[in-house]
């Protein structure tokens, strides 16, 4: 892959995009997991699919729209879905998690109709579902780069607010943190990162890249900063090894990336078990 990397632009695009989402997906994933919002990533990725379908349909039916990148429409839907989830969460105060299945199934329902109308069950769609090493073009690579810089900047700027909101919302509110505003900003970032990650990992597996590395990090980390560092390290490892094996095995990268993440997770669980047992033996 190394020589081919310098030879083929599409490989560079995929690799660079992969490296970028390997940072931001687990970074936001840490906050998603500790706030027990893991399923939000799933809901948002499904509504992104609706956006892709809408874009494919428009491309087909409206003349003059030819080289639209469906990713942008995906982002619009994802962000819209994020805002809807927030509204629904407020509406169902006592059943906040209800917002997730509503948006998830609503998104898929509409998505299926749009895809069928666009006669779109083809390879194109397949690459959006499970990722592709060849689908990333230069422009979307730059888009992902911009999103990455933005997300990292916002997380650094609002680190203490995000931390206090995740740990204790009441405390955050007494500290004068504007929880609603920051939460909205956060969920919009999640929506953008999901749409950005989709081309490499695929819609069905994007939430895995946000949660599995964090699940592994939680087994080992003591502090919050360590959790973030380890999550990014695990996420990045999964993306790089995943992309490499995807290219060589000619299978969609979504599958290989997630399987590497699963292997890392199993390894951390076993590692922790062994270490705890050693600790018990050492103590007794």
């Amino acid at each position, binding site marked *: 892959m190394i020589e081919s990397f310098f030879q083929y632009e599409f490989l560079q695009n995929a690799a660079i995009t992969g490296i970028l989402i390997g940072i931001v997906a687990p970074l936001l994933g840490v906050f998603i997991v*500790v706030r*027990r919002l893991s399923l939000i990533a799933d809901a948002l990725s499904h509504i992104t699919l609706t956006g892709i379908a809408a874009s494919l349909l428009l491309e087909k039916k409206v003349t003059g729209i030819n080289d639209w990148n469906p990713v942008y429409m995906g982002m619009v839907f994802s962000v819209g879905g994020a805002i809807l989830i927030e509204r629904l969460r407020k509406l169902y105060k006592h059943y906040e998690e209800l917002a997730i299945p509503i948006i998830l199934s609503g998104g898929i329902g509409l998505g299926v109709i749009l895809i069928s109308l666009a006669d779109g069950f083809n390879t194109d769609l397949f690459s959006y579902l499970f990722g592709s090493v060849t689908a990333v073009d230069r422009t979307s690579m730059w888009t992902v780069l911009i999103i990455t810089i933005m997300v990292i900047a916002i997380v*650094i*700027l*609002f*680190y*203490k*607010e995000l*931390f*206090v909101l*995740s*740990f*204790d919302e*009441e*405390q*955050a*509110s*007494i*500290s*004068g*943190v504007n929880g609603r505003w920051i939460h909205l900003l956060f969920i919009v970032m999640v929506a953008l990162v999901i749409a950005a990650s989709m081309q490499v990992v695929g819609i069905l597996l994007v939430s895995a890249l946000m949660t599995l590395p964090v699940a592994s*990090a*939680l087994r080992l*980390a*003591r*502090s*919050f*900063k*360590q*959790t973030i560092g380890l999550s990014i390290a695990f996420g990045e490892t999964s993306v790089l090894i995943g992309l490499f094996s995807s290219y060589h095995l000619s299978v969609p990268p979504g599958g290989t990336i997630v399987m590497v993440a699963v292997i890392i997770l199993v390894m951390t669980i076993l590692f922790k078990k062994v270490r705890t047992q050693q600790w018990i033996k050492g103590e007794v």
Partner: protein
Amino acid sequence: MSNHPIVKMEQVSFKYEKEWVVKDVNLVIRQGQFLGLVGPNGSGKSTLIKLMLGLAKPDRGSITLYDRPIKSFSNWQEIGFVSQKANSFNSGFPATVLEVVKAGLVSRIGTFKFFNKTHKDKALKALRTVEMEDYAHSNIGELSGGQQQRVFIARALVSDPSLLILDEPTVGVDAKHVTEFYDLLGRLNKEQGITLLMVTHDIGTITEHATHVLCMNKTVHFHGNTEEYKEFNDEDLNRLYGHSVQQLTHNHDHDEVNPS
């Protein structure tokens, strides 16, 4: 500044789904006091605290904090709060004691600014006050209930508040540590001059430590200093607490019992 009123509530009422939970409460907390807020279950104690912290808005009446109407009050670092929820936080949360305590500085630091060495030192100092400095780098979830409680007090103390509000802080803490806990509160009140407001079920113990007592059951039934309160006989308590009287008088006789 001593004796200066820092919290003032006038005719404050709050209703939850048509039912009045707090009704016509008048209350003044002065600098340097250690006020014990007691009352039976569902008497509106926690709601009163929430109103005071701006977490709930009164349906009637006015609240003044440090001479400012609560709406325009922004000096929140003056008030430290240890919530009842401190007992039930997500104990799997991946954070060290130091990280948790530093989070108490968020209001003091302000937006777009970062944690630095000074903040770390402040957090360590607050941990020293509650004798938890050795645990600074431990994971918060690995500590015992009593230790976690101390960490949450350190988090409330780290911004150098002049008023510390504690909502049932001894629930889930064993009897031996409850004594140590009250000693700590006594030191904060006498040595550092921090005004304390503590919500509790445990009338017996609080009257041994607090300078003032406020009894409420939706409305205020008694508010005065502890000496006056002790002259209240059981008949008065009976009248005050209605159905909950047995449990409460029981506690009055046996200080170590801690209902939860």
